[in-house]
């Protein structure tokens, strides 16, 4: 127990892999972000640019729009997932006949590849043979055209994300609810607290660590969403669903603007880290109050 060498030895493989495959590329991106580097510009090779890429970025309307759009998307979808997930988790806490079957079915989207989720939703919504536009038109007279109407596309992308990830939220919250001590709740009921009060003053505070953990994970992933949306709308119509992941993809890959794209992704990483760090600190604070 005294010697730390053994501890470090056990930790070492993890740290080595993360350093080599994780941090090495990060430093490379950091390095590239300080250069102008686009194989298709008039000047070949890397040209030193200092912080010019970042200077351009803070004035880049398309980038800022995309950032804002991503934030809106992540906020909306994570909120819906949390609310829905909490509701569903509560219905699953108590055992009832058929619970296992429902739960099994409900977990299906969780195992699907994001790219397959995108493909599935594309098949659902594609005008011409998708059932959603067909029945919406037939039953409600709604002209549903994902690739034409920006708001429809945005809503569909959120619905797709909710469909894909609410099961995860539900199950995590369910695990938390299942593990929650029962006496305080019973005590409160004896004391005459109504359901809302129990929920507001007991369940929520007790669930806080789990809630924050879920928000942390979902927010982190929602902010870097690419595959599903790319498959469903490829960022369109126009730029209506061009979230930051897709925006960066377009800059780095088809446009081959390596330097600018690297700067862009670092900036996004910066925002994500700050946001997640705040959540992390909140999580740690909750832990302290508990002790």
């Amino acid at each position, binding site marked *: 127990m005294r010697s730390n060498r053994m501890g470090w030895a056990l930790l070492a493989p993890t740290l080595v892999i993360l350093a080599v495959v994780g941090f090495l590329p990060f430093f490379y991106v950091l390095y590239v972000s300080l250069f102008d580097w*686009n*194989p*298709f*510009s*008039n*000047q*070949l090779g890397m040209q030193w640019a200092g912080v010019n890429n970042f200077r351009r970025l803070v004035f880049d309307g*398309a980038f800022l729009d995309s950032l804002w759009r991503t934030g809106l998307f992540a906020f909306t979808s994570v909120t819906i997932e949390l609310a829905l997930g909490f509701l569903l988790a509560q219905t699953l806490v108590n055992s009832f006949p058929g619970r296992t079957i429902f739960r099994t079915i409900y977990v299906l989207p969780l195992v699907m590849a994001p790219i397959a989720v995108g493909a599935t939703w594309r098949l659902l919504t*594609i*005008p*011409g043979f998708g059932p959603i*536009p067909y029945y919406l038109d037939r039953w409600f007279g709604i002209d549903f*055209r*994902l*690739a*034409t*109407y*920006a708001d429809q596309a945005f809503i569909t992308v959120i619905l797709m994300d909710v469909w894909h990830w609410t099961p995860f939220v539900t199950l995590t919250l369910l695990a938390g609810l299942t593990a929650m001590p029962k006496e305080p709740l019973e005590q409160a009921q004896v004391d005459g607290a109504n359901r809302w009060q129990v929920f507001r003053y007991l369940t929520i505070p007790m669930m806080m660590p789990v809630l924050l953990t879920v928000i942390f994970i979902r927010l982190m992933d929602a902010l870097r969403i690419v595959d599903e949306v790319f498959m469903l*709308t*490829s*960022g*369109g*119509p*126009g*730029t*209506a*669903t*061009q979230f930051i992941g897709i925006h960066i993809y*377009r*800059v780095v*890959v*088809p*446009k*081959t*603007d390596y330097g600018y794209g690297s700067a862009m992704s670092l900036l996004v990483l910066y925002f994500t880290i700050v946001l997640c760090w705040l959540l992390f600190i909140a999580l740690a604070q909750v832990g302290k109050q508990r002790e």
Partner: protein
Amino acid sequence: MLKRKLTVVLGILVLFSMVLSACAPAALPAAQPAAPAVEGEASWWRTAAQTAGCEGVTLRGISESTPPSRYAADVLAKAFEAETGIKIELEATSWDEMYTKAINDMQAATGIYDFVYIEQDIIYQYLANNYLTNLTQLLADNPELASPDFDFAKFTTFIDNFKDAEGNIYGVPMEAFLKVYLYRKDLFSDPAIQEAFKAQYGYDLAPATTHAQYRDIAEFFTQYGRDNGLDLWGTTVQGNTGHASSFYEFFESIAPTFGVYNWGINMDNWKATVENGGEMNSDKAKEALAFWVDMLNYAPPEATASTWDEVAASFAAGRAAQGWVYGENAAWIATDPDRSRVVGNVGVALPPVAEGVMEDAESGVGYIGYYDGGAFGLPVSSKNQLCTLLWLQYIGQESVQADWAIAGSRIVMESTYDDPKVQEVDAKVDGYYTLMKEAGPLFRGAPPFPFHAALREVVQPYIWKALSGELTPAEALDQAAAAADAELVNLGYGQ
């Protein structure tokens, strides 16, 4: 209980993966048939492969997953391996992914790929970056490896796209086709329809030669489909609002027919806006975009989600009466009943043009549409230059062209047009190959821009926004041209 179950699950998975890993290396060679020994005296190819020390070498290439590429991978690569002992691994993938990987490889000079697909429009970027090996030079330096069956002169003029200023060639063409005007012969020749059309518009129904006629026909058939409860619309539009294909349809197929060439960019000073001498937001360009966006009203609902693939699929499903469709699809749409509902009813014609455009095209100033295609090129970073040279010559033989042309509706050599097999298919596709031979010079590939993809990425969002109605055509082009000017300066052109 839990522990045991877990052990079982883990055990099964471990076993499974071990068995699989044991199988995996063995599965690789099994996928390819063993090369049969060449009977009789060694062929020229075998000798050349020995001379270059290439036997047993594996060449790796990347291409878009198109019928011509798949033919090259499935048929030509096998034949080549049998003949020379050189193995070909051709990675056929999606268009976007192909570019990412080829450019990453050549930019980093890692030498993974020995040959890459070069589309006609990207070649100028590749040349500017010195990605590609000069094939003319390489052949001249290695006369012992120059096949007697291979000659650059046998190719159609399409090969000019792969030349540098001195006339050196950097790619062996493997596919080429036109973006033509397809229409439904069964509808156009129906007497009742003809009569109704004449009554409504006052002239005979025929493949459109002007944009006004095109619009009338589109409107007529959309109404006809609605009245008769058919899934039929007047035209296809390759109008995907999130994919580069819509940019290409507008600037390479629609705008030229209105007399706006080279994406409306002034190639003397690299400017796009009218104020700076460009044409991207000229009145003609705005008229063209307005026309094209208007066509969405007469197109099936999937038009704004259609790339080149879906346009062909829509037309093949019989959902459109006419449209601009890539010629590589003409053969299967006209002949393959498994995939097409309009077999035998496909008409092929030249696209409609505005006044003066045909004269421009004939004199060589302009063009009436897109002549697309690609070649296999040899990256400088390849470590097997000479072996790849043999492969490139192999696919450039006259003898392999006819079957390839039938498999992929592509023609890269003059002599292929006269092949009886090709002529037989030609009759079924309403003379598409003949049209390609005769009218080919009226079409042209993408302008020689070394900044092709970079500029496209900047301009295309405005085209998408025009298609989705977020911007009017005039606004879209004004903003697009301004953005193009700024980006060109940023890229170091037209300071």
